[in-house]
């Protein structure tokens, strides 16, 4: 079982409060992603759960038991680090077996478990190699293997894919998701990449300066962001924000429209502007349009839009998909 609850948890380094009082419930078997810009406290939060940092005040419960003062090794959590933190002088087999060796598991049992983990992760051929002889993706898998053999209550991932190249990242993303499907263990995953968050999570926790900006499923966050921060952070390209007179027409301080909810035409629409840079991706085209009286907007057009730099274009927002925010940045119902 891996149910984790944070109750009024705070963390300060000296006089700086990194995490103001924070409450969060993580259900058993959930894949939770902490996402936010760098320095938002997401890694600190993960380390608090792991026990690598002490909470300044508040309580951490694991399976209903107070774990605030429990040392990291007794919490039943396994962690995969950003640098993988493999032991360079040990073979892959010894790396994966290390937690079992520390738990005084006998050698036959140890080997059986290591080989089972290696089988799941396609590492069987590499068991006798040193980490230095492996590629980035293989090292990543060894780190995951070391976490799996402990059969933990929950897995903690600290930006595990940030050191991999783009193609490998997509692969490992799938592998971790599949691992979650087959193990059904709670996983907490920290990333600054909202694409990783959207694709992997059951539940996303968006953090901003140590505070939880919003908690919800990926599509909830996409469809109804509760504030400007979440609206701007989730979704790529970023949501367009318009202030002033145009926003006033909708009874809001700021309105936000996603690039994919703006329709482009050459003969007529709500706003008119000049096309700036056009980014052709093949399946989509991102156009940066300078709209008269509003400013720059990003528009996502399906396929190959027949517009070029300097052309005049008309833009119409989807009225159902206009997000309205008040002057404090909170969403209006």
């Amino acid at each position: 079982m891996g149910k984790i609850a944070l109750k009024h948890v705070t963390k300060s380094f000296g006089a700086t409060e990194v995490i103001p009082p924070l409450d969060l419930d993580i259900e058993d078997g959930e894949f939770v992603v902490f996402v936010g810009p760098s320095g938002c406290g997401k890694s600190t939060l993960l380390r608090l759960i792991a026990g690598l940092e002490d909470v300044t005040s508040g309580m951490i419960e694991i399976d209903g038991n107070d774990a605030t003062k429990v040392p990291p090794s007794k919490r039943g959590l396994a962690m995969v680090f950003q640098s993988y933190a493999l032991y360079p002088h040990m073979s892959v087999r010894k790396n994966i077996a290390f937690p079992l060796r520390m738990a005084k598991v006998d050698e036959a049992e140890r080997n059986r478990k290591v080989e089972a983990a290696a089988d799941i992760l396609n590492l069987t051929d590499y068991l006798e190699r040193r980490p230095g002889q492996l590629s980035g993706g293989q090292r990543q898998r060894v780190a995951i293997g070391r976490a799996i053999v402990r059969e933990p209550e929950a897995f903690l991932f600290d930006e595990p894919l940030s050191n991999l190249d783009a193609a490998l990242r997509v692969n490992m993303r799938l592998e971790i998701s599949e691992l979650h499907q087959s193990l059904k263990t709670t996983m907490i995953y920290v990333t600054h990449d909202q694409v990783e968050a959207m694709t992997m999570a059951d539940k996303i926790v968006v953090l901003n300066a140590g505070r939880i900006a919003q908690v919800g499923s990926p599509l909830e966050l996409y469809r109804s962001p509760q504030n400007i921060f979440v609206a701007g952070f989730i979704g790529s390209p970023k949501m367009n924000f318009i202030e002033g007179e145009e926003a006033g027409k909708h009874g809001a301080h700021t309105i936000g429209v996603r690039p994919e909810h703006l329709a482009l035409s050459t003969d007529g629409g709500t706003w008119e502007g000049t096309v700036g840079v056009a980014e052709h991706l093949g399946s989509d085209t991102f156009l940066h349009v300078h709209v008269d009286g509003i400013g720059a907007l990003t528009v996502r057009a399906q396929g190959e839009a027949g517009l070029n730099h300097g052309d005049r274009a008309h833009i119409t927002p989807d009225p159902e998909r206009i997000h309205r925010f008040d002057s404090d940045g909170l969403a209006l119902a």
Partner: protein
Amino acid sequence: MATQHSRTAARFMMAPAVFLLLVWMLVPLTMTLFFSFKKYLPLRGDSMANGLEWVGFANYVRFVGSSSFWPSIQATLIIVGGVLVVTIVLGVLLAMLLDQPMWGQGIVRILVIAPFFVMPTVSALVWKNMFMDPNNGLLAYLWKAFGGTPVEWLSQAALPSLIMIVSWQWLPFATLILLTAIQSLDSEQLEAAEMDGAPVLARFWFIILPHLSRAITIVILIQTIFLLSIFAEIFVTTGGAFGTKTLTYLIFQRVLESQNVGLGSAGGVYAIILANIVALFLMRIVGKNLDA
């Protein structure tokens, strides 16, 4: 260094340095070899001008046959081994201590390095007179304070005392190298081991010590080379008495106290051979460690 011209110029400019180094090494070496095959007793009237008598390997046989030869080899190995053990064990512990964040870290680190800057003669005299003197030494006061009889360090426990003095000089060097090695350890590895359930001692044994193995190798190599030739410490403390006569010191006695240049030179050649055997062994044992 791209063009032919600049390469020639470089060779030309390096030549004096290379030449000096070669001469500085080759001249004493050939002279030692030359004297080792000659009877050369300056006090008995032998001199280069009169021509020296060729005696073949007699000096070599006599040097090894002397009753002080094997004890001197033994003393040399005990001192080198003892200092290595003390400096590495204490060096690892001190390095870990200095790696902890603390107030006044910079000053403490400089203080730790300080003994390395003290000349061997001076530090040995300080130890001899300030600490180990049986009448006025600090250690004597300490013993008396607890009602004990002061130890006559340099006669009753001469070898351990010498090891202590030399270790004190070399500990900063070991600590410094091991400290930089410890600082390069990725803290995430220690955290991972902590999460994996390794207690403090296991983390030291399985993570920190293997990480330090390369630095320890370097400390052993460099220190052995210098420790084989320690001299000043013995000269100013025991003068080679009480079993502290090392090979280096024995050679010194043969040449300068007995005024037998030929015999001493033969000892010097043995010392060269011993140093090379030790170096070869070390390279074999630890060379693997450096490759990894």
